[in-house]
């Protein structure tokens, strides 16, 4: 199944996936999504102003992700600072927030798997491991 773009006909939210949300998370209208082309999606998103996403914003985002989960952010702030430096350098130099503890292989679909946060739940360093952590150690089991 291939992912495609969907637009809420009420509030113009854009969704990218194999199927649309049943209820629009923004306007809460049910069955409001219609499939659209990639170019229409890009046009719809174009006026969205680019806003700097700082390290503080990123920390807030991953803290929110970890809320109520079996994993948490590593409390070692010095380690986090090093990792953030690498992640933001990688975004500036290579386009996305790639994990500083791995390397892109220049195959887009494959490289998406190492964008932070990655799906570390399936990694051998985390899954089934007592004190499991993601490969870089940013996320650890509670």
């Amino acid at each position, binding site marked *: 199944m291939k992912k495609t773009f969907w637009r809420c006909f009420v509030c113009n939210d854009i969704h990218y996936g194999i199927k649309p949300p049943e209820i629009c998370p923004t306007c809460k209208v049910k069955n409001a999504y219609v499939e659209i082309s990639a170019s229409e999606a890009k046009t719809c998103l174009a006026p969205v102003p680019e806003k700097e996403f700082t390290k503080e914003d990123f920390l807030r985002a991953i803290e929110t992700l970890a809320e109520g989960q079996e994993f948490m952010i590593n409390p070692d702030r010095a380690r986090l600072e090093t990792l953030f430096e*690498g*992640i933001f350098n990688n975004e500036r130099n290579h386009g996305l927030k790639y994990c500083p503890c791995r*390397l892109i292989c220049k195959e887009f679909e494959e490289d998406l*798997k190492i964008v932070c946060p990655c799906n570390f739940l399936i990694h051998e360093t985390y899954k089934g491991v007592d004190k499991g952590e993601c490969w870089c150690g940013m996320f650890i089991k509670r």
Partner: protein
Amino acid sequence: MAKLIMFHGRECPHCRAMMPLVDQLEKEAGIVLEKHEVWHDEKNADLMRSYRPVLTPQCGGQLRVPTFLNTETNAAVCGEIPYEKLKEWALK
């Protein structure tokens, strides 16, 4: 002649943790590892990618740093590992 290579990343905490162990190994065993930083040097990144078929089966299916590679035997170990394991890899 066999080359011992360490692929590492400047902002990788595991790589930083392994550096003193690599120094210790070089002094103790009288060997030198070629060190290649892969996120800030495209040539080094390409070199690591050229070993992808050899490295990924030994490193969780991905290119990960730090990775230690013996270019003669293609034996590789990855991640933050104990000194003894590093030494065993290097002297094998």
